[in-house]
């Protein structure tokens, strides 16, 4: 952990490096990449004749359709039809975390999601989102589920529920950050040890871990939202 491998961030002038930390730089790279891909896909969808006819090759629109259908199906099976209003949020979580994780596999880039600041920010957004959805669904009686089954034990139950709720964005952020950090470190070490064939296996592991972590983050956000919206009394 002592040496610092080369990333494109090192080419920036020192004044810019003082203002822009490493993870913000690569977050911006990931965002610009996603915006360019989205604009490229939009160009095809604007032509209304071609929009509804799917192409039979692998195009950008098809890839985005696969991802959206995946997130939409997941949302339908977990939250139900009320989750369709928030599909853009969960799609953003999934696609942004997926692309940010994949960026780390390219030599010279560092995944922005390997930094705790980025992932805790995403966790806080997920936290705020499911509370917002719960309040919008239940109104003021959203707090009723923090009181527990009996009013008598409400203070104790409130403490317990508060702990478990505070724990959620923390674990979401920690899990993603340290999975990405450890995986990036493993790829780095093994590429430094054996230069040619063996790192391919670790790239496969890295790709798998990236996809799984993006999936788990989105899935857990949806599960928390479904718990907040649920009418189980």
């Amino acid at each position: 952990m002592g040496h610092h491998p080369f990333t494109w961030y090192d080419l920036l002038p020192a004044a810019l490096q003082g203002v822009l930390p490493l993870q913000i730089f690569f977050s911006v790279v990931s965002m610009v990449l996603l915006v360019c891909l989205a604009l490229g896909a939009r160009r095809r969808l604007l032509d209304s004749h071609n929009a509804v006819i799917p192409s039979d090759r692998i195009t950008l629109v098809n890839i985005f359709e696969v991802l959206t259908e995946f997130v939409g199906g997941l949302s339908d099976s977990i939250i139900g039809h009320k989750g369709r209003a928030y599909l853009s949020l969960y799609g953003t979580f999934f696609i942004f975390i997926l692309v940010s994780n994949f960026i780390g596999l390219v030599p010279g880039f560092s995944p922005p999601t390997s930094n705790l600041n980025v992932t805790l920010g995403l966790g806080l957004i997920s936290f705020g989102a499911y509370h917002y959805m719960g309040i919008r669904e239940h109104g003021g009686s959203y707090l009723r589920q923090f009181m527990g089954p009996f009013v008598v034990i409400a203070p104790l139950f409130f403490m317990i529920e508060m702990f478990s709720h505070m724990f959620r964005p923390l674990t979401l952020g920690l899990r993603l950050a340290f999975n990405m950090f450890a995986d990036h470190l493993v790829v780095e070490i093994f590429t430094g040890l054996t230069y040619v064939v063996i790192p391919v296996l670790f790239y496969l592991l890295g790709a798998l871990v990236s996809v799984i972590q993006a999936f788990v983050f989105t899935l857990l956000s949806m599960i928390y939202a479904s718990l907040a919206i649920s009418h189980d009394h």
Partner: protein
Amino acid sequence: MKPLIASVFSGLFLLILSGVAVAAEAASGNSASMVPGIIALGAGLGIAIAAFGCALAQGRVGGAAMESIGRNPNSADKIFTPLILSLALIEALGIYALIIAFILAGKV
């Protein structure tokens, strides 16, 4: 019961062995610099035990999933999502131990 007793005894044996090793190192070197060694030992043992526990738990989850898919191959798609979720949640526990191991290894 027998594997439990065997693992408890092997754990005690390892502890006694490490105690002997620490005493030997303290006798040969100066005892004021023993703390970095203990910290490093704690980091290594911590992640080892955490990885062991995670492997056991994930093995059980994976085994149960394989068995239920084998019994009903059409349910493979429905089992896949809870399987991946369980594996990732158990993995997260090992990652928490890895965090502590990294923090400790940075203090050596």
